[in-house]
C-alpha cells in the first residue's frame, strides 16, 4: 500500500559517499605506509633512521669525497671518501700487471667476450652456430692476450690479471663445465650401476668440499699428478679446478631438469624405437635444458663471484689486482677500503645484471605454463 502511494511522488534518497579511492599515489601511501598504527610506527622509525643516515652516507661518498689523485688531500680530518685511490690506480686495478702500453689488448678482448656473453643471452641467437662463435671468440681472446702473433709482443699468463682474468675464468669454466655436467647428470640417472655410482660419487665429493680446497689441490697437488718434466701453467691448473667444481654444481641443476621431464615422454620415445642417445638428444634434453637455463645462470653468477678466491692461490684477478695495486704503494695503502668499494661496485654491476636476466628467462620459460 505505502509503496504505491509513495511511488507517485518522487523522493530522492540521500546521495552515497564517493567510493574510497584505491588508486594513485595518495592511496598507495595510505595503504603501504600509514595503514594502521603498527605500519605508521614502523614507517616513522625506519624513515627517521634513513633520514638520519642517508645524508651522512651521501656526504661521505660524494659531497665531501676527494676525487683527485692526491693522497695529501685525503689526510685532512673529517673528509669523505678518498676516491683518488681509484683515479690513481684504476688501470692497475682493472688490468692487473699487464704491461701498461699493451693494455688495449685486454680491453678489446674483454669487450669481445662480454659482447659475446650479452648476445648469447638473447633468445634470437640461440642457434646451432653459437658454440662455434664461442670457440672463435675464445681463441681470439687468447691470441690477443697472449700475443706472439701478428706483431703483438708475448705476454706470459702470470702477467694477466684484473677484470679480463675474472671474466675469462668465469666464462671459460662455464663453457668447459657444461659438457661434463651434461654427461654426469645423464650418468647419475643411468641404469648402469657402475656409471651411476661414479657420477654420484663425483658430484657429492665435489659439493662436499669448499672451492678453496679444490684450488689448493690445483696449485699444490696438480704438479705432483703430472708426469715428470711436464709443467702446466698455473692459470690452466686453476681453470681445471674451477671447471671440475662448477661441473658438479651444474650437473645437479641439469639433473633437476631431467627429472622434471615426464616419464611418458621417454616411454613414448621408446615405443617409437628411438635409441637411448636419440631419446636424450631429441626428446629429453630439449625439454630439460630449457627449464634449467635460470639455474645454470645462477651457477654462472656464483662462479663469477667465486673467481675472487683465486687471489688466495696467487692469481691476480680483479680483487687480487686491487689488493696488489693499493698495498704496493705506501701512500695509498690507508685508503684500501675505497678500493674495496670500487671493485664491489664492479662485481655488483655484473652480478645484478645477470640475476635480473636470470629472472627474466625464468619468466619466459614459465610463460607456456602460466595462463
Amino acid at each position, binding site marked *: 500500500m505505502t509503496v504505491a502511494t509513495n511511488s507517485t511522488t518522487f523522493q530522492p534518497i540521500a546521495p552515497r559517499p564517493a567510493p574510497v579511492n584505491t588508486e594513485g599515489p595518495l592511496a598507495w601511501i595510505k595503504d603501504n605506509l600509514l595503514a594502521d598504527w603498527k605500519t605508521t610506527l614502523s614507517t616513522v622509525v625506519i624513515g627517521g633512521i634513513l633520514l638520519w643516515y642517508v645524508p651522512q652516507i651521501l656526504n661521505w661518498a660524494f659531497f665531501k669525497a676527494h676525487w683527485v689523485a692526491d693522497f695529501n688531500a685525503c689526510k685532512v680530518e673529517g673528509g669523505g671518501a678518498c676516491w683518488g685511490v681509484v683515479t690513481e690506480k684504476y688501470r692497475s686495478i682493472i688490468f692487473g700487471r699487464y704491461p701498461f702500453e699493451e693494455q688495449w689488448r685486454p680491453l678489446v678482448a674483454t669487450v669481445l667476450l662480454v659482447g659475446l656473453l650479452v648476445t648469447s643471452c638473447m633468445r634470437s641467437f640461440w642457434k646451432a652456430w653459437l658454440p662455434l662463435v664461442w670457440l672463435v671468440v675464445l681463441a681470439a681472446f687468447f691470441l690477443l692476450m697472449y700475443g706472439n702473433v701478428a706483431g703483438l709482443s708475448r705476454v706470459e699468463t702470470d702477467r694477466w690479471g684484473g677484470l679480463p682474468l675474472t671474466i675469462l675464468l668465469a666464462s671459460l669454466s662455464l663453457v668447459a663445465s657444461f659438457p661434463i655436467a651434461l654427461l654426469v647428470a645423464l650418468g647419475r640417472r643411468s641404469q648402469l650401476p657402475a656409471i651411476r655410482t*661414479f657420477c654420484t660419487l663425483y658430484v657429492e665429493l665435489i659439493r662436499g*668440499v669448499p672451492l678453496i680446497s679444490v684450488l689448493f689441490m690445483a696449485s699444490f697437488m696438480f704438479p705432483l699428478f703430472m708426469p715428470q718434466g711436464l709443467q702446466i701453467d698455473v692459470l690452466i691448473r686453476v681453470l681445471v679446478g674451477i671447471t671440475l667444481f662448477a661441473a658438479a654444481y651444474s650437473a645437479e641443476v641439469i639433473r633437476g631438469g631431467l627429472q622434471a621431464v615426464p616419464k611418458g615422454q621417454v616411454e613414448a620415445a621408446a615405443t617409437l624405437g628411438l635409441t637411448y642417445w636419440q631419446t636424450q638428444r631429441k626428446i629429453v634434453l630439449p625439454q630439460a635444458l630449457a627449464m634449467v637455463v635460470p639455474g645454470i645462470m645462477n651457477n654462472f653468477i656464483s662462479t663469477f*663471484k667465486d673467481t675472487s678466491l683465486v687471489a688466495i692461490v696467487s692469481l691476480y684477478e680483479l680483487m687480487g689486482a686491487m689488493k696488489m695495486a693499493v698495498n704496493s704503494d705506501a701512500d695509498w695503502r690507508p685508503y684500501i677500503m675505497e678500493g674495496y668499494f670500487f671493485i664491489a661496485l664492479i662485481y655488483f654491476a655484473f*652480478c645484478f645484471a645477470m640475476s635480473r636476466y636470470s629472472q627474466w628467462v625464468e619468466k619466459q620459460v614459465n610463460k607456456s605454463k602460466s595462463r
Partner: protein
Amino acid sequence: MSSTAPPPKKNWSWRSQAFRGVVYQIVAIALIGAVVWFLAHNTLANMRIRGIQSGFDFLAQTAGFDIGEGLYPFDSEESYFRAFLVGVTNTLRVALIGIVLATALGILLGVGRFSRNALVRGLCVSYVEFFRNIPVLLQLLLWYVVLTEVFPAASEAWQLGWFYLSKGGLNYPIPVWATGQLWAVYGLLGGWVMAWLYRRWAHQQFEATGSIRSMIWVPLLIVLLGGVIGWALGGAPTGLNHPVRGEFSIENGGALTPEFLAVLLGLTLYTASFIAEVVRGGIASVPRGQMEAASALGLSRTQEMRLVMLPQALRVIIPPLTNQYLNLTKNSSLAVAIGYPDVVSIANTALNQTGRAVECIAIVMLVYLITSLGTSLLMNWYNSRAAIKER
C-alpha cells in the same frame, strides 16, 4: 595367422641391451682405473724424485707455531694433531654461531618481504640484492679492514656499558664461575621439563576444547623462571669478570678477536641474504587460498602465519636451507684470507712447514666432507619427518 615366438635372446650379442651395459661399465671402470693409476703413479714417482716424505706420522710431531685463538689454549710445543683439532673447533664455532645468526636475520628479512609497510619491503629487497651480489671473500676482507682500521685503538675503545669495541675486537664481561651458576643451569633444565609438560597439557587442551594457549611465550617464561629460581637458590652470585681499559689493550673479561668478528659478520650477512630468498620463496609457494581460508576462519595475522602458512612453507624451505647451511660452513674456509685460524688456515701452515701437501689437503677435505654429509643426513631425517605423508 600363426603367431611367431619372439626370437630367442642372444645374451652375448651387441644387440642385447644388458650386454652393452656390461661392456660400457667395464670400459668406464677401466678408464677411471687407468686415470687413477696414472695420477697415483706420477705422484709417487714425483715424490720419490723430490724427496717428499709421505704419511700421516707428522701429526704426532710438535707443531712449532702458535694459534691466536681457540676454545682451549694451544702452544707451539703441542702436536700437529692438536693444532688440527683447534682448527676444526674454530671452524665449527664460527659456522654454528653464523648459522644461528644468519637464520634469524634471514627469516626476518624473508618475512619482511611480505610486510604491509613499503619501507620494510624496500629495505629487505635492497639488503638481499646488495649482499648476495658481492663476493663473500670481498665482504670478509672489507669487514676486516673496517674492524681493524676504522675502529678506534684499544686505549680509545668505544664503550657501551660493560662492552668495549676497538681494533682489538669486542670485549665483554663473563660471569665468575660459582656454584650458583650450576644451580641456575639445573633450574633451566627443570624449567625446560616443566615447559615441555605445559606444552603437552596445552596441546591436549587444544585438542579437547579447541582453546588456544600460548605455545611459545609461556613456555619460554617457564624456562627463564626456572633458571632464575635455580640461580636464587644457589645464592644468587653476581660476580662478573669485567673487561678493564688497559694501556695497550683491554684486559680481563671475554674477548672476540677482530678476525673472528670479521668472518662471523661477513658469513652471517652474506648467507642471510640467501636464506631470506629461500624463506620468501617458501612462503610464496603456499597457495593464496590458504591464507584467505585462515582469515575466513577468524585467525589473526600472526596466527595465520604461525599455524597455517609456516608449517606448509617449511617443507619447501628446509632442503634449500640445508644447502645454505652447508655453504656457510664451506665458506668459513675463506677465513684463511684474513688469518682466522680455521682448519684450512692450520692446514696451510702445516703444509708449508712439512711439505706434505697431499695429506694436509686430504685432512681438510675429509673434515668438510664429514660435516657436509653429517648435516645432510640430519636434515634429510628432519625433512622426511616434515614431509607430507602421502598415501
